[in-house]
């Protein structure tokens, strides 16, 4: 697997910045005002500041420490302390291949072309961070049961689609959810979840709560294990 799901497209609108991780690489992911996505190492070459604290100006990402602006091509375009200087081309950030597909932001750290397979009509549910390792959640999902407050015990059909990829179908309700597991440093992980698109706001809330319950059980088990 070369492409990693690092977040939901809807959580990164134009002009915004987020932080994520792939295989212990601390990353800044940002979208320019015109909508172009970039993913770089989360460190400003100047004095090492995390670029995820920065801000987007037009088609550039600016570092919050001294305001250096980096263009989409990773080159430093503007150094505010020297407004008349054309920054040397050697000042660059380090980029990784990133793209949106099917409502997910994907990052590809070996920069090889790889198109993840995902239906393109899914609706985002949410990204949820877990304070337990990915393996814990992988082990939990096949056993998972969920009592909805309104509908009682749900009849779930759970299918593994590959490492860290699951589909949970809620039978009898015409609902299914795609889960993309995402390994994070320090024994943490996240799930990025999408559902089929013809769902009501109530149904989305139900699915969001189902995920919270999955987190609750996984973390509880991890606590017992860690203790």
């Amino acid at each position, binding site marked *: 697997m070369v492409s990693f799901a690092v977040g939901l497209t809807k959580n990164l609108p134009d002009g915004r910045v987020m932080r994520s991780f792939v295989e212990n690489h601390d990353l800044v992911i940002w979208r320019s005002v015109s909508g172009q996505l970039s993913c770089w190492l989360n460190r400003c070459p100047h004095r090492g500041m995390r670029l995820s604290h920065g801000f987007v100006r037009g088609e550039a990402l600016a570092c919050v*420490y001294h305001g250096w602006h980096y263009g989409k091509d990773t080159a430093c375009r503007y150094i505010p302390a020297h407004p008349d200087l054309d920054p040397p081309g050697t000042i660059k950030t380090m980029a990784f291949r990133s793209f949106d597909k099917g409502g997910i932001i994907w990052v590809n750290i070996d920069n090889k072309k790889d198109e993840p397979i995902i239906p393109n009509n899914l609706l985002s549910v949410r990204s949820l961070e877990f304070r337990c390792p990915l393996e814990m959640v992988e082990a939990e999902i096949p056993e998972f049961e969920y009592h909805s407050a309104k509908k009682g015990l749900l009849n779930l059909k759970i299918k593994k689609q590959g490492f860290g990829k699951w589909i949970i179908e809620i039978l009898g309700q015409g609902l299914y959810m795609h889960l993309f597991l995402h390994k994070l440093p320090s024994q943490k992980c996240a799930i990025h979840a999408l559902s089929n698109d013809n769902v009501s706001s109530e149904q989305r809330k139900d699915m969001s709560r189902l995920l919270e319950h999955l987190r609750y059980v996984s973390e509880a088990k991890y606590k017992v294990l860690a203790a």
Partner: protein
Amino acid sequence: MNAIEQAMQYWYPIGMLGDLQRSETRKTRLLGMDIELKTEQSGLISVFHQKKPWNTKSAYGHIWTSPSKMPKPLFDVPEAGDHERRFVPCGSVRVRCSPLRAVENFLDVAHFPFVHTDILGAEPHTEVEPYSVNIDETKDEVIATKVKFYQPQAAKSASDGIVTDYVYRVPSPMNALLYKTCPNRDDVQDVIAIFVQPLDEETCDVWPWMALYDDQSTMAEMIEFQQLIFLQDRSVLENQIPIKLPLDPKMEIPTRADLTSVAYRRWLKKHGAIYGAMVSSTDDAWVAAQ
């Protein structure tokens, strides 16, 4: 001499004068060592590490200690004897960063418009004009002079924007002072210092101290202003990678505005003052960050 032995030769601030209660013992840390700061009923102050006493002294509003039997003399701040000034210790703020990064940040003006927005700097006034840096050979200090920067509100007592003149002094690796235009008088300069207590290589308590000509502001206002500025820096300092200060010039990219920082890093290297520093780009933590 290794990093810690080198660092042990200096004096470090560990408390604020006047803040200690009689018959009180405080625990703190210095250079990775647990220490106790005891105040007797008589007011006498002593410092112990593993029950052994260390040297102490009072200066510039603070209690200082050194693990060394014969520490290098504490640097001189002549302005501390000027009784027209108001002396303002501000307590300490804990920061998870290298003590050297804290000092370097203090020496930097280019961040003012972005970190201290509308106070110490504001866009579009971002340019750092050329200034000079040298090493004062007799005192063995890094000195930067003729630093100028446009400031919307240079001090608590300033009402309008002014171009402020700065002189910076680094008398020892973890202490720095600046002399800046006094908004109320043009014949004198205000003094602001940070005294850094290294708890370990990646954590420090920073003790700001000021000697100001300001007869308008209350003590609460002056302290608040300095704390506010430093807390803005703290958000940046806790997010620099790597945590330790890189001394290999290949690891970070300075410009002309960073001359003070460049001189500071060289001076640290020359003295082997590398406690809190990352010396080479083959260091594990650096490789991991790539």
